[in-house]
């Protein structure tokens, strides 16, 4: 019986609640209802008191979690949608993120952020917030792309003494299936070569890893191109060494992301490669992101707004032809 990405998230939380009495879950509708995406289904029943419904107060939710973390608890806060974390922005970046540096007391807080677009979700239920949080010192930002990573990285995030923004992709929830949760044991901070190649490197994360792999398959059939796909897994810390090593093999870089195009993770990837691997580049590095508009509602617009295997192919063909 195959397992899904959201199964992994639920099972990881189950494991954490079972094995660590300091872990508790806090979020809107996560109790008896089981969460907007059912990521906590059945957990309150098994752990009454440790799976708590919160008022619709994102700011207070993180504030509460920070207070509990100071006390040594390991709260997991579910933002119903990553988009709503903007309400909690202050508590995340000013309260949680600065605490260890200022006081020496770390905040083992995990914020689960259902991220990215699904058709029809529109401007306020589709955002990718990883770049915003990665910008701030004191936060770890992870973006699992596989079922096994969703499982192991959530456990690792909760065990991490620092605030972790765990970006889980809503499109992958039920779309992505695997035999089990068993992974390759890579820790947070290490990227993975998802697909090896020699003609160009695509650096991606979260759902875009799958789009990159599909694009690579198309180009393989089309012209025998061998595209290497690097899955960042965690955008902060960013595994620059693995990226640079890949570009050293291929000489060409496409940084791919689902977030808005101004700045962000893909810009960070390019800037690192240019700064540290300038001599490796045989073509100007490229970026491909969502368009610089709010995420549109209509599925046709939505599909064109974010990078797709087709648009990744277009970008790669340009890159390969340079």
């Amino acid at each position, binding site marked *: 019986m195959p397992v899904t990405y959201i199964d992994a998230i639920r099972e990881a939380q189950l494991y954490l609640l079972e094995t660590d009495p300091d872990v508790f879950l806090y979020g809107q509708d996560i109790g008896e209802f089981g969460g907007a995406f059912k990521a906590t289904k059945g957990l309150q029943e098994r752990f009454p008191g440790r799976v708590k419904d919160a008022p619709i107060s994102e*700011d207070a939710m993180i*504030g509460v979690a920070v207070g509990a973390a*100071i006390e040594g608890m390991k709260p997991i806060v579910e933002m119903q949608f990553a988009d709503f974390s903007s309400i909690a922005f202050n508590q995340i970046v000013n309260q949680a993120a600065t605490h260890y540096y200022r006081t020496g007391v770390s905040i083992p807080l995990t914020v689960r952020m259902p991220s990215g677009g699904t058709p029809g979700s529109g401007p306020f239920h589709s955002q990718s917030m990883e770049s915003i949080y990665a910008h701030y010192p004191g936060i770890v930002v992870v973006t699992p792309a596989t079922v096994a990573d969703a499982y192991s990285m959530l456990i690792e995030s909760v065990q991490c003494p620092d605030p972790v923004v765990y970006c889980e992709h809503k499109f992958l929830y039920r779309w992505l299936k695997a035999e089990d949760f068993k992974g390759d044991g890579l820790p947070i901070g290490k990227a993975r070569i998802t697909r090896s190649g020699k003609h160009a490197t695509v650096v991606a994360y979260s759902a875009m890893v799958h789009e990159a792999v599909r694009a690579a398959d198309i180009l393989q059939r089309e012209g025998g191109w061998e595209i290497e796909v690097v899955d960042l897994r965690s955008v902060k*810390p960013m595994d620059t060494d693995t990226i640079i090593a890949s570009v050293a093999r291929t000489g060409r870089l496409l940084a791919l992301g689902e977030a808005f195009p101004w700045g962000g993770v893909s810009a960070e990837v390019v800037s690192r490669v240019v700064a540290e691997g300038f001599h490796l580049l045989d073509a100007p590095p490229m970026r491909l992101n969502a368009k610089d508009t709010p995420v549109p509602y209509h599925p046709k617009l939505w599909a064109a707004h974010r990078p797709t295997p087709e648009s990744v192919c277009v970008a790669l063909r340009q890159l390969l032809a340079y």
Partner: protein
Amino acid sequence: MEKPSPISKFELNAEHGRALFRAMLTSRMLEAKLSSLYKAGKIVGGVYLGKGQEALSASLGICLKQGRDVFAPLIRDQAGRTAMGEEIIEVTRTYLGSVEGPMRGRDGNIHRGRPKDGMLAMISHLGAAVSVVAGALMAKRLRGTLAGVVGATCVGDGATSTGAFHEGLNVVAVEKLPMVVVIANNQYAYSTPTQSQFACENLIDRALGYGLVGHSVDGTDMLACAEVLGEAVARARRGEGPQLVEAKLLRLSGHGEHDDASYVSEVMRESHAGRDCMEVARAQMLEKGWHSGSEIADLEAEVSEQIVAAVAMAQKENVPNPYTEDWCAIASAIGRTSVESELCL
């Protein structure tokens, strides 16, 4: 349900009064010294005084115990910090940037704290601490260590306008936490008068809306503050749920020492709220017979000596070394062993 703590009704006695007065006096004198150090160019950044708010703040702090309770003081709570047990040296070390202080030069002035002892380190964003104290209390409840514990935080009239304050207070009420939230209504948020800040008659009227027990008090009156805060903390500790206190008073300084508060009218200064709580307290101590005049003079001399010693000590200690500073904001190993390669120039 929370088991009621052994503490029953609050009783104001001489011992409590003397401790309260000592904290107020220490705060007043220590802040005067901090102001002077600022005006001598020794302290950079800013100095924000609680002058005029000592009675209120100390009345709360005196009911709290480090290592047991959770307190998130705000900008004008030197008296409350001192009353709860903060050492003077903690203050001077933080203001003067000594590496021996709790913030090690990484943060300054009123942003200090000892979170593991229950003294939280405030951020500048108003109202943000309400939910943090709530979270600490919820953690203790989950662990079964909440009995007899009280959480407290202070805000000004300005902070009541923030969303965080509302969200936090709502959570506190929903979770029925043993918590006391004190609003020091000192008439101005920096320079903005209360009529531009809110439209209700009294902020305490909001207690009903949140489902909290409300208390009003004259913030210039030490004995009144001691009674009301003592009662509020005792009720919270007894398991009677969260308490909201509004005190009316006037900040007797600028927002910070760089601000001469020229926007405060003469009428306001001369009003009842403009009374100096320190003078009121002095008279009350004498009247109650809890201190003689000479005892107060001795106390002042003793505190003064402590302050001078703490300032001298902090000034002689090392300041942070930017060349050997651990420029890492992450506690976990991944932040250190990772392949992050930012040039920290």
